[in-house]
């Protein structure tokens, strides 16, 4: 596919390359890591949000997660922090919409207090999410530029 470039707002900067994991519906953070939160899985992160047809059952450990925003329980922020700490959290979060308060709290607390960065770019625009597909190559740059393809 032809490479496409998008520019968003840098919430937490970093340079990351990998493959996209896409949830076109808002990503329910705590609902997606139930097995890691409550059943002791520290090896993989099979998405436990049964309402998420794109990701349910798939391993989202270390993902570059592309989604509009996150939703769910107010535990969602510390869930991101906890998942990063045990090694199954996302490597990067790429939001087409403005970041929500839960994800913002999670990535900031992990970064400032645990020195564990989840590179986060928001406001990438609806076109970003229309373009990117799970498995597409992704390159994230320090200035908030995201290359797809």
């Amino acid at each position, binding site marked *: 596919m032809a490479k496409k470039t998008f520019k968003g*707002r*840098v919430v937490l900067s*970093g*340079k*990351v*390359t*990998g*493959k996209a*994991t896409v*949830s076109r519906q*808002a990503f*329910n953070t*705590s*609902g997606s890591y139930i*097995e890691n*939160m*409550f*059943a*002791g*899985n*520290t090896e*993989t992160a*099979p998405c*436990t*949000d*049964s*309402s998420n047809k*794109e990701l349910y*059952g*798939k*391993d989202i450990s*270390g*993902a*570059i997660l592309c989604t509009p925003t996150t*939703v*769910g329980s*107010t*535990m*969602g922020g*510390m869930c991101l922090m*906890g998942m*990063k*700490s*045990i*090694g199954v959290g996302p*490597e990067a979060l790429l939001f087409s*919409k*403005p970041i*929500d*308060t839960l994800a913002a*709290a999670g990535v*900031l*607390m992990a970064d400032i*207090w*645990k020195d*564990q*960065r989840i590179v986060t770019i928001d406001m990438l625009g609806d076109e970003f999410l229309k373009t990117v597909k*799970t*498995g597409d190559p992704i390159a994230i740059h320090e*200035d908030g530029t995201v290359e797809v393809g």
Partner: protein
Amino acid sequence: MKRRDFVKTLPAAALLPIAVNVTAENAEAADAAQAGAGTKHSGKSPQQPKGFSVANKTHDDSGAYDTVHCDQFGIDSEGNPIAEGLSGTGSDAGLKEHDPDNPHKMKLTQEEQDILDGSKGPVMAKVLKTIVMHGELFGAERLADCGGAPHSSLYTGGPWVEPVLEMFEEIADAGLKAHAPYTVNPMPLDLYSVGQDPVKRNMMLDGYPMQGRLIQVHTRLGARPLDVWSCACYVPEVGNTAKPGTVVAWAESSAVNYGNSVLAMRINRMATGMEVLCAIAGKVPVFGVLTDEGRKAKWHIDVRLSKEPHWGALGGAVGTKVVEQIPYISGIDQWIPMEDGKPDLVAMGKLKAFGSSTASSGAVGLYHMEKVTPEAKEQGRKLLADDYQTYVIDDAELARVMGNFKNLWKDPDGDPTSVYLGCPHNTYDEIFYWSKKIDKAIKESGQEKVAIPVVMACSIVVRNRLLDEHPILLRDVLRAGVQFTTICTPAYQGLKGMADIDRGVTNSNKARFYSRLRLFGDDDLLQIAMTGKLPA
């Protein structure tokens, strides 16, 4: 081979549940699974070493939260993905655009800037840095000083909360405390009441191994004693309330909902952890429902019911429809008793049930109820935003919503094994009501005890009021098998394996939403308690 080892050897596709068809879309799962492993990172830090392990992992049942969890599903009532307008704040009065060359910055006072620069030590500087960065992402112009007292929703000592505990411990080690003594959500374990069953006691201890550490750090940071730990922190016996307009640092979706709506306080729906950081600093960034604009209603809920509804079910209908946007509800005030212009103690229970359900089936942080809630009484329909939508709830619509409440018991045809009353925690009026109801049924039936345990959740200070005012009634219902407990019902029900041994029924739509409990009306619940059978 242990199941855990077996699972580890499976390819990613084998993790897919049998019910999922392997289609072209699902074929992307393999890519997704590999994406994490192949990711290169030059940011602050790579993946950290694995932190903990818990024995007896089961892939199939990760607790009752699975399949039924959480405040929002990310889909609407018709199953379509939603994203527009979601901010997590319950308000869309936030930043919509940004200038990369001129990112939004908050205006800080000299004192606040000095704190950021280290005038009160490096840990307090980190506390304020987190708050300021968070606020700037949402267009906050300034920080507000907290009033009242904080309320924390960090209450479950599961292994994965350790990073947050470490953050709190770093703050406590620096000698910092919350700006005022604060309340905390109820604990997810109770070893004295529901924990008398050794199987369930061990499940609680296995599920929440860090509970002692959590209690300790809250104590060091200035939490009030455990007899007031309750999700219903605003009941008179607990007394964590403040005057209308007061800005507070609270988390716990149902308490935020009640505080904003019924008490007209100003509380953004915070992620767990942020509320404690704000409590330490005594500062909250001003955005969302802290602003007048952010408290406008985007939905008019036009209630046209022929009889008083199940309040939790009504809240479920509203929350599912509006998700996190603010609703203005009319046509319901005739069932809300008022005293001196405010909802009375009976109304408190109804509004608690309604609001907590909007906050769990959706993520509503604030609602206005015509002729009931303070801002609706003052401003009426001027609270409706220009572009509001309307949702009519009549008898047929409420029946449709309740018809979608599924039977999620592992054995759907089994008999009920427990009755759970009170989520959020019961008020005094509610435990008095239920105690009288059960006591009357026991004495009329000639039975010595209820047929299955009745679990009555409330804080100790609420239960103690019943002991003080109606000691004989309390004695009799205890003898009849009612278990007064401080527990958080969803956290208790969410324990791994609980759904295998318990088929519970409840009066709480919030508890139903977060677990496998089934919802019934009060008379049906009494019959179930007395017979151990579902109504015919």
